[in-house]
């Protein structure tokens, strides 16, 4: 598989996916590039939306919906809420751009991307065949699976959520 790059047929769907992915990638860069946390958060929201769209291109409708509801709707709101609450809107921290740590971090990021990407991406450029049924992402499929095969994780996650609830109460309550 290591020969010349296989010819890829340019289709509209491909172009759309490339566009979505491009925006998502840009937004991701924005998250770490902006000094202001609010801007970062907004970039993250954009990124999450793009991801939701990409899930739809993968036929994972239920996941895509959940992505919008959970991440964009709940988690990011929470983030923004905290940022506002703590009055962190202004960039209170010194810019990191000139620190050696930033340089080393970026360098390592490049290496990480290079190491993994160089092995994974070229051979997979030619894989275009989807193996899953088209309705595999339907709520029905998810629901059936969740309550049969994944009943134990489903029970277990309830403990986790309970911890989340009790934990945040504990962290927030006034009585010390």
């Amino acid at each position, binding site marked *: 598989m290591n020969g010349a790059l296989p010819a890829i*047929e340019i289709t509209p*769907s*491909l172009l759309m*996916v490339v566009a979505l*992915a491009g925006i*998502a*990638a840009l937004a*991701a*860069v924005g*998250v*770490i590039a902006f000094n202001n*946390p609010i801007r*970062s958060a907004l970039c993250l929201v954009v*990124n*999450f939306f793009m*991801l939701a769209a*990409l*899930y739809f*291109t*993968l*036929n994972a409708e239920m*996941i895509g919906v959940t*992505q919008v509801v*959970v*991440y964009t709707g709940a*988690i990011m709101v*929470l*983030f923004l809420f*905290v940022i506002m609450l*703590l009055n962190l809107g202004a960039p209170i921290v*010194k810019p*990191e751009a000139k*620190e050696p*740590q*930033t340089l*080393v*971090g*970026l360098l*390592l*990021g490049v290496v990480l991307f290079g190491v993994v*990407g160089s092995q*994974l*991406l070229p051979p997979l*450029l030619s*894989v*275009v065949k*989807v*193996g899953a049924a088209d309705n*595999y992402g339907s709520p029905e499929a*998810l629901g059936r*699976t969740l309550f049969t*095969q994944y009943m134990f994780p489903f029970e277990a996650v309830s403990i*986790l*959520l309970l*911890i*989340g609830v009790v*934990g*945040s109460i504990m*962290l*927030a309550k006034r009585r010390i």
Partner: protein
Amino acid sequence: MNGVPIALYLGLGLFMFTIGVVGVVIRRNPIVIFMCIELMLNAVNLTFVTFARYQMSPVPAGGMARESSMMAGQMMVTFVMAVAAAEVAVGLGIMMAIFRLRQNIDVDELNILRG
């Protein structure tokens, strides 16, 4: 959607993951770091869904093996979202707590504990 190479999705996932990692390493605002972690999780989610969709791996023939396989990735994403929610609740709580104590959340200044 046919015709899109899996490498595109995986590449985006890897890129987002890397950006998230780099962000954790270079940013000093714990909220931003946390957001970068969320970015990593989303990259992972994308990867899961991609693999679930493309089903590259051979799976034992017969039975519901293939179906199990394509659902597994999505299940994982579902649970990751649940976990992320819990983590956010707790994580932001912790940050609030320390902010109340110090009025400052620059992670580089969190260094009483060292050595």
